[in-house]
């Protein structure tokens, strides 16, 4: 069982370092940092200017379309990975198959582009 997770040892070390750094820095600043409570300090940080209105504001619905399109291209990438690992042994046939896959998805990409799915305004 040990051998299955053996290749992920660097990732585990990296993750432990990231978590450790985050926690220790937060802890250190909460121990050593000075505590001055003023109205300005307690208010929400908004690039130094005074906050306007509530922070509980509705985001533009555009974000959601971007997120949906991102998930779709994300899944496309997931299907690219197993092909990319074996593309040498699959040869031309595999390349053509992947081209068909990507070609069909390219239609969706072009459609979304033409309808302005990637335009922000």
């Amino acid at each position, binding site marked *: 069982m040990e051998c299955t997770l053996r290749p992920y040892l660097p990732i585990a070390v990296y993750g432990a370092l990231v978590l450790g750094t985050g926690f220790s820095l937060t802890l250190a600043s909460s121990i050593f940092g000075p505590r001055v409570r003023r109205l300005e300090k307690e208010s929400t940080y908004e690039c130094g200017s005074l906050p306007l209105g509530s922070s509980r504001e*509705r985001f533009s619905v555009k974000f959601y379309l971007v997120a*949906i399109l991102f998930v779709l291209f994300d899944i496309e990438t*997931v299907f690219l990975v197993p092909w990319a690992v074996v593309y040498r042994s699959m040869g031309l046939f595999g390349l053509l198959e992947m081209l068909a896959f990507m070609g069909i998805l390219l239609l969706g990409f072009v459609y979304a582009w033409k309808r*302005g799915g990637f335009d922000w305004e």
Partner: protein
Amino acid sequence: MSFSDSIFWVFATTAVVPAFLILFTRSIVRMAFLLLGSLAGFAGLYLQLNAAFLGFTQVMVYIGGILILFLFGVMLTQRSDIPVREKVGPALAVPGFFAGLLLMAALLFIALQNPWKTHPPVPVTEPDTPVIGIKLLSTYILPFEAVSILLLAAMVGATYIARVQAPGAPDGQAELSDSNAEGRLE
């Protein structure tokens, strides 16, 4: 307890404990982040089971994509839009209690009565991603290409439903953004 067992328990705890905490959390944003922990725990379990492809797909699609979609969905809705019934009267509590009991009984009945087809663990010796790649492009080529059609339909559907107008479209029907949020958070 061996080393790999303790690793398993770390992942299992990471998967189950946040899922339980979701039940006792009021803030929907916290729920989303707890879900992140739970999904990450499951990804770790997949890795330990030598299903690296599944594990990384879990990280990429669920943690990297679906969860962001959830968070955007939460941020799109105003807090006051979500009706939370603080007090439940007996007219709702009593039927609710019995409905819950019935559901639990049904689930327990299925779980205990069903002859689960358990399978002895099959030792996996080779990395799974190349195997999946070869199978996907040979045996399962039709489902593979069907997936692209499905993704195409989802892409077209999402763009269409969002009513994104082509640049310079004459009719000013339902705009993508409400005028309320226009111009903010650019």
